[in-house]
């Protein structure tokens, strides 16, 4: 309970720190928001008017209080360039990005954990080697390239086996569940392969340590076979580690997701962010970055809590305890 309270306090502090960081980064770094927005050949008067309109000539503190107050009330502002409500935009975009990430993660675990176990426990040495190579190559694959290989293989129209659409998302969104799912299959597969490869590697190395541990010896003494002992006891012991690894890959996944959303022309939050950075719609970018950062900080929070639940040994210096406990 004390842990939960401390960790939530940290989460709040991190959210605050993040908002300040994003705010300051977009103000202090070179490139005045107003002059960027007004365009290249804007008159000074126009820039000044724009500054007035955007409220940029007030003090930074006042601006920050205004913005963060709005964010706390759920009002993420309105894009000055397009006049659309940022919050509503993000909400509609998240409906695509979130299922994509979840589906990708699901596929990754589906491939990664069993194959990782198999690459340690398979009876044939050649199979073990092959699976290990597969994981290594999967981890070295650029998201962009992996996606293109999938398009060449499975895309409707140009692929070898023409099953899945390679571009866009149905206009009706989730009202057409079948075609919506179909358009997410290839992107999710790409994300899943890349994340799955790293999950596979970590599963393998964690189980490798387990192979020689006294836990497995104990299981075998109780009458289990070696494979049973590793799967039942070893896997349970390493599960907290795996959760934190999955949490960490989750954060890195967003790079892949942004690339993949752009490539497959999915109107998700990643492609939105890239478009807005390209348009120099800075006030919108500020809110979007904050929402994304908050999302990932919450993931980190959830991972820590799950880790704690799975591994009751973690008291005090968490990392040291886990390192010593493993030896």
């Amino acid at each position, binding site marked *: 309970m004390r842990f939960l309270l401390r960790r939530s306090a940290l989460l709040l502090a*991190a959210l605050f720190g993040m908002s300040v960081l994003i705010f300051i980064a977009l103000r202090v770094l070179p490139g005045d928001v107003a002059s960027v927005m007004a365009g290249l050949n804007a008159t000074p008067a126009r820039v000044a008017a724009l500054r007035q309109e955007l409220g940029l000539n007030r003090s930074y503190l006042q601006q920050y209080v205004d913005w963060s107050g709005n964010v706390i009330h759920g009002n993420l502002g309105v894009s000055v360039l397009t006049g659309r409500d940022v919050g509503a935009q993000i909400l509609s975009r998240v409906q695509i990005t979130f299922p994509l990430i979840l589906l990708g993660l699901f596929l990754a675990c589906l491939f990664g954990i069993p194959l990782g176990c198999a690459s340690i426990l398979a009876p044939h040495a050649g199979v073990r080697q092959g699976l290990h190579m597969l994981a290594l190559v999967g981890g070295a694959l650029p*998201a962009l*390239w992996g996606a*293109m290989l999938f398009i060449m293989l499975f895309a409707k129209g140009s692929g070898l086996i023409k099953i899945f659409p390679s571009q866009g998302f149905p206009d009706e969104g989730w009202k057409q569940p079948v075609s919506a799912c179909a358009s997410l299959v290839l992107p999710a597969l790409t994300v899943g392969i890349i994340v799955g490869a790293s999950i596979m590697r970590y599963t393998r190395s964690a189980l490798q340590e387990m192979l020689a541990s006294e836990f497995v010896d104990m299981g075998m003494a109780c009458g289990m076979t070696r494979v049973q002992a590793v799967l039942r006891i070893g896997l349970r012991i390493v599960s907290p580690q795996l959760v934190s690894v999955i949490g960490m890959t989750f*954060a890195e996944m967003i790079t892949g997701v942004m690339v993949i959303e752009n490539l497959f022309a999915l109107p998700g939050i990643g492609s939105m962010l890239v478009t807005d*950075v390209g348009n120099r719609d800075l006030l919108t970018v500020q809110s979007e970055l904050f929402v994304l950062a908050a999302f990932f900080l919450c993931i980190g929070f959830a991972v820590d809590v799950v880790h704690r639940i799975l591994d009751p040994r973690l008291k005090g210096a968490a990392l040291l305890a886990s390192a*010593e406990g493993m030896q």
Partner: protein
Amino acid sequence: MTSVRYAFTVMRVVLRSMWRRAEGRFSLLVLGLWLLVSLVSMFWTPWSLWWTDGYHVWQKPSMLHILGTDGSGADMVSWLMAGSRTNLLICVLTIVVTAIFGLLLLAAMLVRATMLAQMSVVVIDALISLPTVLLALILAVPFGPSVAVIVAACGFGYGLNLARIARPQALLVARSGYVEAAMSNGARASRVFLGHVVPNIRPVLVVQLSMSAGTVILAESGLTYLGIGVQSGVPSWGHSLATSVSFINVYPLTVLWSGLIITCVVLALNLFGDALRDCADPLSNAELRSIRQDGGAGQSSGEQQSSSEQQSSSAVLGQGVTRGSGQ
């Protein structure tokens, strides 16, 4: 003079034992080829980078253009060769930034009984759940796309990872008897850190830094595709990949080469770290152990470690480490 000769002996032994392993040989070959091509491309490429032939765009591979030409009629081989230079630069710079930043963080986390140490652990745990691409986006808004943005964002993110992953081991070292002995002899904290802690966690550092080098190549291709990485007109593998993406249905061959190169190099970098860790460890490499006994009899243990560090051809890490441990 003898210590230089000793360093060369160690280097030869380590390289030879790496060459004997299949994955070590693969990584040495690929990385050697990469260095060679980068070097050659500084003085010579088959065609000038800016030579274009508007009448012969998207040509198939021929004797004239071994891999064909791209959309503006420029020679593919020349661009890929020149790209290897940019990618090498990005890799080296990122390793430097990661090593310096990560080790500074680690040092801060080891200082006991200070507010700073406790806070740094907490802050790093929070920051680590943020994807580097968000940082790159923040930086790219004011500065525009550039190599520096990639290096800064990735170096920061990987530095956090490095510190976090190396911390448990570093703590164990910091609490060991010989650190206590050194401290009671009046050694300064910085000396102890560089002379004892860093050499003893070298295996983790080597693996993490070579992984960072691989990951930054992947990140470069992703970020460049999103328009926040390498500027257009600068040759890089990610750039070649990104520009050929839109034509994948028409000219799939052009996409193949750059993706293949990136995958091979990243794979080689990941394997290189693992192989180096195993082969440069005197505990598992008997040959290395024997020359240590012969050649290093009169030398302090710190000096031995520093010379074997020089051979870890990631010379960058060496700079950070040898300075302290060689004293």
